[in-house]
């Protein structure tokens, strides 16, 4: 469904000190319908830039993004809004708190893409659709009248996901959807996303810095560093036997509940 080839993004350096920055350098991957690909890497490795190019929020400077055979990489971000593919690729942002319009209620935020992208005009139908979406993401319909600041982090994450699902997309680009959430809320959102994927036959491009989250959510994974892909393949296989030095370093560094980093340290009895 999605085939990314030799995708590149360089940012022009500004000011006398700076030089051009190659944020994404020659990235290649494919995602099948209903498939899932995780992108792991440190902050600044180009994960979000990659995601933003595919959802056409920013333009690529090289390579192609073939969505069902059409190179959407050749479509400028400003004209992409009028393309039929716009409805089918949806972006879920990292911190939903900052990405929901503060003066729109949760219900209005979810209704917006139904009006704009699906083209539904009948208010009663829109309301029914919004309520159905709220049910899909396990959001209490009573909360639809609330504004973002009246919702908890987990509830805002659910609104963001419902909003992305509103246009019946085929591909969801999830940019750290649980980074701002607690472990137990994160668990609830991950379970929700996992269920939605099979319910709506969605494909996921899942950006995360947490390899454990990617292990639960994605069949395939790419590990990025400084804009380049250093490792790519089935998640299970890479977790078991990483091939690159950075992949090994990354897996080694994951804190584990059963691996005490300072086990040898003498315990000092509290006074």
């Amino acid at each position: 469904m999605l085939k990314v080839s030799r995708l590149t993004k360089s940012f022009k350096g500004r000011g006398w000190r700076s030089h051009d920055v190659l944020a994404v350098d020659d990235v290649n991957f494919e995602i099948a319908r209903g498939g899932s690909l995780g992108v792991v890497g440190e902050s600044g490795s180009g994960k979000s830039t990659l995601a933003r190019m595919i959802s056409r929020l920013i333009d690529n400077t090289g390579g192609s993004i073939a969505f069902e055979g059409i190179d959407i990489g050749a479509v400028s971000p400003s004209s992409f809004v009028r393309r039929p593919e716009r409805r089918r690729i949806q972006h879920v942002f990292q911190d939903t708190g900052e990405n929901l319009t503060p003066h729109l209620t949760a219900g209005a935020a979810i209704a917006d893409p139904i009006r704009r992208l699906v083209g539904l005009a009948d208010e009663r139908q829109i309301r029914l659709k919004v309520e159905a979406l709220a049910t899909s993401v396990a959001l209490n319909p009573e909360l639809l009248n609330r504004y973002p600041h009246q919702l908890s982090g987990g509830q805002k994450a659910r609104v963001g996901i419902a909003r992305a699902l509103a246009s019946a997309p085929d591909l969801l680009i999830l940019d750290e959807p649980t980074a701002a959430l607690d472990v137990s809320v994160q668990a609830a959102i991950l379970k929700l996303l996992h269920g939605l994927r099979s319910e709506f036959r969605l494909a996921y491009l899942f950006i995360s810095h947490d390899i454990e989250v990617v292990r639960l959510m994605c069949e395939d994974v790419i590990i990025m560093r400084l804009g380049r892909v250093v490792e790519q393949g089935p998640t299970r296989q890479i977790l078991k036997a990483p091939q690159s030095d950075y992949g090994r370093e990354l897996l080694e560094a994951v804190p584990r509940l059963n691996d005490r980093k300072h086990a040898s340290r003498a315990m000092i009895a509290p006074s």
Partner: protein
Amino acid sequence: MLEVRNLSIEFSTRRGTVKALDRIDLSIAPGEIVGLVGESGSGKSVLSYAISGLLDRSARIASGEIRWHGAVIEPVRERRSTHAAIAQIFQNPRASLNPIMTVRRQLGDVAGRDRVLSLLENVRIDPNRADHYPFELSGGQCQRVGIALALGCEPELLIADEPTTGLDVTTEAAIMALIGDLSQRRGMATLLVTHNLALAAANCDRIAVMHAGQLVECGPAEQLAYSPMHPYAEQLLASVPQHSESADDLRTVPGLLPDLAGPLLPCRFAPRCDRHQPDCDASPLSLIARSPQHFVACRHPLC
């Protein structure tokens, strides 16, 4: 070195009095790393601000005290007079740096100009970044500058409030190794505030679990990670992705945190607890020692 005794803190708001902390007991010894975990809204940050002396004037101490080397210190910013060697790493890295000063000047102010480069090296920042302003750095880099600033004043106690959120695991490991090294070499004590249980289990000597302003369990990290006693600690551990084979196995803590401005039960976890018994609501409960170092505030613990 640091002793928090029976500390209760309330905030007066338009909605009523928010009982943010309820009779907290916690001590930290030199060289010790203590993890403070719990959901957002559990009072972790209020407790860490109280220890750093950064609480707002609207805070009222309902009971208890904080002692630093035996002397009482004030949790409220305006009233703290002692210059205790306590440094804090803040949650929001960009907001805690001075936007109109370069990294070099900020670090130089705190630690002396000659130490700037070695401090940056410790937190894995390219020395070329020293002459940049905070807005020219990424979030992760700002976070690391904040850590360098806190460590630059050579504190006796470091309060690290979610120090590694937004950093990748390799940098996180480097930062934790640095903190571990300082605690070992210089006897720096650390309170690591985090919701990452795996991070706390891997790096801390002891872990304290908070729920809705109450300390529900406190014990050696290994014991707590393997055999938690409080039902909340157990549920929190089960929601860590590492524990699950697939997303379907993930468990979540049912229910929500209670409204801290409303009427509260003696055990604030009772409405969410599957082990709740009538005697749970009987009388205020305090930490019960299950072993010399392991305390739990529960009448029906798991083991």
